[in-house]
């Protein structure tokens, strides 16, 4: 009774002593009482979870708002930097695309060169396009370019070299009034009287074949190629007939759309030499050598008269 009274009177001190003693014992042992700890931990985790979610949400939003205010200049700088990077990357990308296209073109040119060993070709880059159908290439007389070398692409005829400087040369394309190339219709080898395809003076079409005999059959869609009389190797495609007009009662004109548009070209070939192959020179037929002289034909009796058989 006396003890309980004393405890009641000194409740704070007793409580303090109990709590401190318990804490000290817990600290001294250093162990985490599993059943208390796990229970409390569970309680803590349960009560903490929604709180953590709320604080996380509030923290995120506060960070966002604070960053809107304080990081504005930094964001602005980042924006400018990113824009600059974007522009640089776009430039890189377009350059890469250009390289890809160039690679494709050069690969195609290389394949063409490999496929046609009979031609000695010199690749040239177009460095200037002059109004009126003239182009300037980066190969000149120092590289062996002379007037009037033929300039072609794998798609067809481009034109002729009309002026060769030391390091550059001018090429008159089919869009130029001085460019005249011997041509014929591939289907039936019809030529105009002058044998040429040239710039159309009427300004209606790009090129024309004038003075075709009225009796000659020329139809739209016929392919026009270089003729053997021209400076080019025979059969090199020039273009396609897109129209035919009767000029008079005896003659007509055919209008040709060239396959090659010089204004869309980047690289061309200069035809240095066209060496016909042996097969071409000899013709397509190559005689088969027959070594076997034996024959399985039945022996036919000699029916000639005696005088003929034994005559001197």
């Amino acid at each position: 009774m006396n003890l309980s009274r004393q405890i009641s009177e000194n409740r704070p001190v007793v409580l303090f002593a109990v709590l401190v003693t318990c804490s000290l014992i817990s600290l001294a042992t250093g162990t985490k009482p599993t059943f208390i700890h796990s229970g409390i931990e569970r309680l803590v985790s349960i009560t903490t979870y929604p709180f953590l979610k709320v604080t996380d949400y509030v923290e995120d939003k506060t960070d966002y708002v604070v960053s809107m205010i304080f990081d504005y200049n930094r964001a602005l700088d980042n924006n400018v930097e990113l824009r600059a990077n974007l522009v640089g990357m776009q430039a890189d990308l377009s350059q890469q695309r250009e390289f890809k296209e160039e690679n494709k073109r050069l690969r195609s040119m290389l394949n063409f060169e490999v496929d046609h060993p009979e031609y000695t070709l010199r690749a040239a880059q177009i460095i200037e396009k002059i109004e009126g159908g003239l182009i300037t290439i980066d190969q000149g007389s120092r590289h062996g370019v002379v007037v009037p070398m033929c300039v072609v692409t794998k798609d067809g005829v481009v034109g002729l070299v009309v002026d060769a400087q030391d390091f550059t040369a001018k090429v008159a394309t089919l869009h130029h009034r001085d460019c005249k190339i011997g041509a014929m219709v591939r289907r039936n080898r019809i030529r105009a009287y002058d044998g040429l395809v040239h710039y159309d003076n009427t300004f209606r079409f790009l090129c024309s074949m004038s003075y075709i005999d009225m009796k000659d059959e020329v139809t739209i869609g016929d392919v026009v190629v270089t003729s053997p009389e021209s400076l080019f190797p025979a059969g090199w495609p020039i273009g396609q007939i897109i129209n035919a007009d009767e000029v008079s009662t005896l003659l007509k004109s055919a209008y040709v759309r060239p396959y090659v548009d010089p204004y869309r070209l980047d690289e061309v070939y200069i035809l240095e030499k066209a060496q016909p192959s042996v097969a071409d020179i000899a013709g397509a037929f190559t005689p088969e050598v027959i070594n076997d002289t034996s024959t399985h034909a039945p022996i036919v009796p000699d029916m000639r008269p005696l005088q003929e058989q034994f005559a001197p």
Partner: protein
Amino acid sequence: MRKNITWLILVVVAALLQTNWPDFLRVQDVVPNLTLILVVYFALVEGEVRAMLTGLIGGIYQDVATESVLGHHVLCHVILGFIIGRLSTRLIADHPAVRVGLVFLAGFAHGFLYTIILFIQEPGTGAILTIITQVIPGSFYSALITLPCFVGFRVVFHRHELNNWGAA
């Protein structure tokens, strides 16, 4: 009963805030000790028993949440709650400067005690560096938010005394 439930919730919320202090309120990794402010408040207003019980609940919660040995926070809070509760009868605790100073000293004492116990348990930890870089700034931070916190606690628990208390 209602008051006790409110008190329990407040202690748990303070401990929760203490253990999950939002990053944007951290200043150089320094956080105020909310549980200690609560302990000091109850020691001043209601005496050492309530303060020690506050320290017990908050300390257990913090010990569990921070996975430290059970009793580490409890011991610090209980000792300070008891001492401040005893001192409160001899202090003019109505003056704001006294409360702020008391919280600062209590924060320092709590941090000191906590660090020393930690140092005894793990001698490898740098006690002096912790006191300089964490305890003193933390105490200062706690002292800074003392007055708003006290007003808040007063609103929750002792609303009827608010006018008299605020006048002081």
